[in-house]
């Protein structure tokens, strides 16, 4: 008993049975593919290729995590990322390039612009949810359409191509790809933010019970506003990665990422009603989705040789989500039965 009460509260929040189950799942996936695909899955090359893939959607998942923790959701984050990428690309091609300003000015400027776009879009979302009081799912559905639409307005339709961010997308530091470094930095940032700051604590409390949060003196409007602002900034960062990886910006890039990130959050144990969910769970879910999709791709390619294999992972994602939910259901049932037997 003494032991239990000396547990810090952040550890209580960040480690639960769901996370443990997810770890087991990830190990099983990893071992299974390594055995099924000898010399292919567990190779340096494959690890490297997976490492540059997951940060793209992995970063977006943080936006989903933090908004879902407050009991909301951000469906506009991909729209934000694309708008940010387009803004950066417009600056890079307009001001930079041949005969333009020097890269050392234009590149930071374009990055700042992307982050600024993310901030503005996020704050707008926050105002709609906190001040106007629109249900987050509808507010961000609307702004998602708005931001994507603005993307079309900016470009008139076609993609804007520029390779000036390629050093980010292809580069590495001490052998670690730069997108992975950005992902790790964000992971640490969110882990500290959620577990070791008043803001993070308030996010959990607000998500658990907004009425009680208000009665406890938490300024809930401000917490919501900051949450969506942060999600917007994450969208801006994701936009930079989009542009860096694809060397072009499009208004409708990565539209499947919205559902994918919701799926990751749920898989990672984030409660869809808010208040519960951890960075650990989220990162594990991101990794398991990446392992699963790469492994399945390879496996299907090996078995059928058909290009349709890439679609199998989409099926597997959905199946995995339902499987985890059903397993959770049975575990809860067993717990209930055990309690009533006692």
């Amino acid at each position, binding site marked *: 008993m003494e032991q*239990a*009460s000396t*547990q*810090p*509260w952040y550890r209580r929040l960040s480690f639960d049975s769901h996370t443990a189950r997810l770890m087991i799942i990830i190990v099983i996936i990893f071992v299974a593919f390594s055995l099924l695909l000898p010399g292919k899955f567990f190779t340096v090359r494959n690890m490297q290729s997976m490492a540059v893939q997951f940060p793209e959607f992995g970063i977006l998942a943080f936006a989903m995590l933090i908004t879902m923790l407050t009991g909301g959701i951000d469906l506009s984050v991909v729209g934000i990322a694309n708008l940010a990428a387009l803004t950066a690309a417009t600056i890079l091609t307009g001001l930079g390039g041949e005969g333009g300003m020097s890269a050392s000015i234009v590149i930071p400027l374009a990055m700042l612009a992307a982050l600024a776009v993310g901030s503005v879009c996020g704050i707008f979302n926050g105002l709609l949810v906190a001040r106007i009081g629109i249900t987050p799912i509808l507010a961000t559905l609307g702004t998602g359409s708005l931001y994507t639409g603005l993307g079309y307005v900016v470009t008139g339709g076609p993609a804007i191509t520029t390779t000036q961010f390629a050093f980010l997308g292809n580069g590495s530091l001490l052998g670690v790809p730069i997108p992975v470094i950005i992902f790790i930095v964000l992971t640490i940032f969110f882990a500290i933010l959620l577990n070791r700051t*008043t803001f993070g604590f308030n996010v959990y*409390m607000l998500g658990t019970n907004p009425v*009680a949060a208000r009665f*406890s003196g938490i300024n809930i409007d401000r917490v919501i506003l900051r949450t969506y602002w942060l999600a917007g900034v994450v969208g801006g960062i994701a936009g930079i990665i989009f542009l860096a990886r694809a060397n072009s910006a499009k208004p409708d890039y990565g539209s499947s990422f919205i559902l994918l990130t919701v799926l990751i959050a749920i898989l990672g144990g984030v409660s869809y009603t808010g*208040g519960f969910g951890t960075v650990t769970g989220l990162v594990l879910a991101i990794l398991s989705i990446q392992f699963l999709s790469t492994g399945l791709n390879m496996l299907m390619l090996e078995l059928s040789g058909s290009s349709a294999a890439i679609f199998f992972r989409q099926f597997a994602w959905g199946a995995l989500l339902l499987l985890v939910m059903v397993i959770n259901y049975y575990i809860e049932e067993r717990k209930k039965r055990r309690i009533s037997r006692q």
Partner: protein
Amino acid sequence: MAEELLRLTNIHKSFAGVHALRGVDIVIEPGKIHCLVGENGCGKSTLIKIIAGVYERDQGDIMIRGKSYPQLHPIDAIRAGIQVIYQDFSLFPNLTVAENIALNEELAEGRRLVSWRHVREIAQEALAKIDVKIPLNARVEEVSVANKQLIAISKALLNNARLIIMDEPTSALTEREIRSLLEIIHGLQEQGIAFLFVSHKLNEVLAVSEKMIVMRNGRIVSTGDAEEYDTARLIFEMTGQKIAQRSYRFTPEEGSTPLLRASNLKADETLNDVSFDLYKGEIVGVTGLLGSGRTELALALFGMLPLDAGHIEVEGKAAKIDSVQKAVAAGIGYVPEDRLTEGLFLEQAIGNNIVVRTIDQLRGALGLTSPAQVNGEITEWVDRLRIKTPDPDLPVKTLSGGNQQRVVLAKWLASSPKIMVLNGPTVGVDIGSKNELHDLIKQLAGEGMGLLVISDDIPELLQTCNRILLLRDGRIVDVILPEATTENELAAKLIEE
């Protein structure tokens, strides 16, 4: 010998090893109003659910109108004429009054298609039986609580009810509504319909009940004609102990500045020119019926109800309280009426609930939250308020009502407020913890806090407050000193119109 409507003999029921009912015998007579009283957790709701067939008994006999039921399913209970009206009435807020009344009847008729004319006819007929008029096309969410109750009763009558069991029937009604409800009940009583009121509070229903059934710890401890009981006896039977009448006396120092001064507070139609002072060390009671403005007064002081006029001073300085943050900054804490939805984060750990107000102060290196300080704070308050739990990491919903209320108090006390507004501080708390909470309130006042206790629990007001403000229609109509009144006098004043 009068015919028996319902007889329970030696009913036992256990949940997960806990003996909820230990040999209950009761008899319900037709056409009589019975009242089942008991503390929270005494087994009342389990008993009702057994009568309704929702729970299966472990042991014992149930006889309804002379027929024995070795197994009683919900549908058997309904067919035998037993109807339960739960506290939330089980109505559909989004459907019309007519449809809510007629729905069960339509289901019983096995209809697949809806005839809206038929629905109206059923509803009209049902409401005519109790001689009330409620707009049939209004959605249930738009009608008053009293009307919802009447809708629930007329629904019950449609099913040929012989016994109507009502859970906390008057808890949200005004005096006038209670009176008309009782009139309707008397009318039905003459038709031979029996009533069983279930209550944990000693209130208006006692006055009209003819038979008392008192429960404690899963047993019937006393039954008899209502005339044989007075409040003191009922409390004794319910709790098994004589509660000493202790009052709280206080006189402010000459010329001292009030801790809180409210002048001419006005808000919408709910508060009308409310003025009072609260001194350091004082416990002021606020009472009144539902809708008298008692909760609105608390919300106004806590920055949740915008004031149209009037001002608030804290320690002699004007305080413009238009948000919860400003109220908190002015040193005002609020323990809300509805603990479960407004006071607590039920699924979160007890510890998290305690530190929610002070988390910002528990920071260490780099300005980050310090787990050691957080744990220190949690342990301190669990000890100080004697919150009974094996582990503060457990969700707060695992605690009993009394301990949950301590958590809400700990949350506020941790941030050392000067003024605490307690709305219904002991609602849903058993008598033992109630006394401990009262002692805690007095202790806090002794330490120099000013407390406002909002309650309609008359003994509670008399025992803890040194002064009681009586609210009616948003005005303070009387200031009562506990030593100069009695329970009956205060009860009478409370429901005067």
